[in-house]
């Protein structure tokens, strides 16, 4: 084995840097899942009857479903009765300012480098911080509300904006959509809601930091973003989680609705605990993300950088219903050590002249296994629909894997679908070339990997792109130059 391989190995063997546990008393539901659990969650959150009924319907359906086995991932069977479905930091009074937030909680954020104060003062990013299951602080709300923008926790939206929730909740991902979406619909704890009124361009990037903290608590986030006619919003989601021994289940649902001429840009940087080198511990990330371009000329873009989780199972998709609507999916997925990812997108073309672009970059190191799975469906009425897909895989070393499963269904003869795929191995030649110019192997690997991901990174908002490069650096090597 050459030194170059050694250095790749060394870099890919790096451990998760952000594993620490915050010591905060949690108010948890008893272990297990039944109708009573669903009722308990609903009552804890003081929900109206319609919300409980919606949850119960989802639960009843979930009981009839079985876990999907088609993804190219392997994990021990999950005992759904052995998990805790609700956990909230014990804070009895609601907060008016950041100063009232539990200092222990604040320190955790500071360790992650996302001090809310700093966020507030310097970055101009409004942060709805979801710590475990309850939103503890929401900033910039005032500024946003002056524009008529609603950005709040999901529970608050259920209380304050029931008409919007009732209209749009489940309109993109129905309760019965799939096993994990149904589970989420029954027991979702909290999440974010965002509404941009007609013609409003949201002046700042909206951002939520999720963090799974209490031991053995499944996280069931629910996000709903509605962009009314002619509006624009860019939403950032970034995640890290502390070190854990036992696998943690995360089954979130994200729904996006873009009305006519509206545009939603949804960016994710995901860095959950991937498990140790042997694959022990780590988050199971089973997420349903979907958007609908319901009006003409609307646009939804998903950009994701997935570096964490033991298992990633997600297919952020776009239903292109409105004529001339546009769907985009840009993805970087990293699997290292024993990580497994089965991820991709679904582009469903219904309207005329609809366009979709898919750029997927998979990076595998260690014993990681990376699968791209994508569906491009052109329905009968989607005259002149266009799709372009590009799936590239980069392998670091000899023990990792990359797979591509493209599904293409075309029912309209005027449409055009293109698919390109490539697999390459980070070359000893490339690394030696860099070293011969004076770069260290670490910088060389970094540069090559970042170059490989460039098409995706440039779709991210600037400050997020920097963070994404950093995360990629952390999962594969020391630092990004």
């Amino acid at each position, binding site marked *: 084995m*050459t*030194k*170059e391989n050694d250095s790749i190995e060394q870099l890919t063997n790096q451990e998760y840097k952000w594993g620490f546990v915050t010591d905060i008393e949690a108010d948890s539901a008893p272990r297990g899942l039944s109708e009573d659990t669903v009722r308990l969650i609903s009552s804890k959150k003081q929900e109206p009857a319609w919300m409980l009924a919606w949850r119960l319907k989802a639960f009843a359906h979930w009981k009839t479903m079985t876990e999907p086995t088609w993804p190219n991932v392997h994990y021990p069977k999950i005992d759904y009765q052995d998990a805790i479905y609700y956990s909230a930091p014990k804070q009895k009074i609601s907060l008016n300012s950041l100063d009232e937030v539990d200092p222990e909680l604040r320190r955790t954020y500071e360790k992650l480098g996302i001090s809310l104060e700093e966020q507030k003062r310097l970055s101009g990013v409004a942060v709805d911080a979801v710590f475990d299951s309850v939103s503890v602080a929401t900033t910039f709300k005032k500024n946003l509300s002056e524009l008529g923008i609603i950005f709040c926790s999901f529970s608050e939206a259920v209380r304050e904006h029931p008409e919007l929730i009732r209209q749009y909740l489940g309109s993109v991902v129905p309760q019965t959509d799939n096993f994990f979406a149904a589970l989420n619909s029954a027991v979702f704890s909290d999440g974010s809601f965002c509404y941009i009124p007609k013609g409003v361009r949201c002046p700042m990037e909206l951002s939520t930091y999720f963090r799974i903290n209490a031991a053995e608590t499944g996280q069931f986030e629910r996000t709903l973003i509605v962009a009314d006619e002619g509006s624009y919003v860019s939403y950032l989601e970034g995640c890290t989680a502390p070190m854990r021994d036992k696998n943690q289940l995360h089954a979130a649902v994200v729904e996006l609705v873009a009305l006519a001429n509206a545009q939603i840009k949804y960016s994710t940087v995901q860095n959950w605990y991937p498990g140790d080198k042997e694959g022990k511990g780590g988050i199971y990330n089973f997420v349903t993300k979907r958007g609908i371009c319901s009006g003409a000329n609307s646009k939804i873009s998903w950009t994701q950088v997935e570096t964490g989780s033991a298992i990633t199972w997600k297919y952020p998709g776009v239903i292109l219903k409105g004529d001339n609507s546009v769907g985009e999916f840009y993805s970087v997925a990293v699997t290292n050590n024993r990580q497994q990812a089965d991820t991709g997108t679904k582009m469903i073309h219904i309207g005329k002249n609809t366009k979709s672009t898919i750029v997927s970059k998979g990076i595998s190191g260690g014993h990681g296994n990376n699968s791209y799975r994508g569906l491009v469906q052109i329905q009968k009425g989607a005259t002149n629909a266009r799709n372009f897909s590009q799936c590239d895989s980069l392998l670091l070393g000899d023990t990792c894997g990359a797979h591509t499963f493209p599904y293409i269904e075309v029912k309209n003869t005027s449409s055009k679908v293109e698919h390109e795929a490539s697999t390459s191995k980070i*070359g*000893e*030649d*490339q690394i*030696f*070339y*860099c*070293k*011969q*110019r*004076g*770069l*260290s*192997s670490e*910088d060389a690997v970094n*540069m*090559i990997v*970042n*170059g*490989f*991901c*460039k*098409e995706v990174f440039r779709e991210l908002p600037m400050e997020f792109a920097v963070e994404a490069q950093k995360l990629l650096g952390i999962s594969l090597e020391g630092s990004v*130059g």
Partner: protein
Amino acid sequence: MLEIKNLHASVNGNEILTGVHLKVNAGEVHAIMGPNGSGKSTLAQVLAGREAYEVTAGEVRYNGKDLLEMSPEDRAREGIFLAFQYPVEIPGVSNTYFLKAALNSVRKYRGLAELDAVDFLAMVKQKMGILEMDKTLLSRPVNEGFSGGEKKRNEIFQMAVLDPKLAILDETDSGLDIDALRIVADGVNKLRTKENAVVVVTHYQRLLNYIVPDVVHVLVEGRIVKSGPKELALELEERGYDWLKEEEQVKA
């Protein structure tokens, strides 16, 4: 500057270099010629520190230091530059970004301040003039989509930016047309000083019309079998290498 003594090197158990002796002083240009498979490129790669080649015996001193003990990146930072015969592509990484990172890594090693973007670009522009490079090559990814000639020119451009003490040109002339050959050779000549040295590895005498060597060495079966003044290159062009091989066999 460079002193090679009895260098033996093998790859996958096959001995390629079988006892090379070579001494290069500052300010000199040495040409290494030889038939296919004689070990010319291996010698270049071993000097640059390619791990795939195993040095089984011998010694290489570079400015008084043990070169073989140094990592490839440290050799580069100490001023050894290899112009590759087949420069690799690095998709998505712009030529400018790559070179700036490389230069600053070298400068840092030498205890110099890193150059900021403004100073770097000013310096780069000046160096581009030497090689009559197209400006668009700067923003394009390293070697990606470059023609063979552009790649070779880019190597010498990198050499100009990194300003090495010892430059090793591994068949830089292959794949170049006459005009490109002249530009590349002119570039190398302009970069020559009393302090630096150039080792030119080539098959053909053609390049040596432009980069005139002080000494020509002939490598046969992993050893330098003959050294002489620049006229030796012309003789080789005329007579080929077989007579040298025969001489070797007679000696053996």
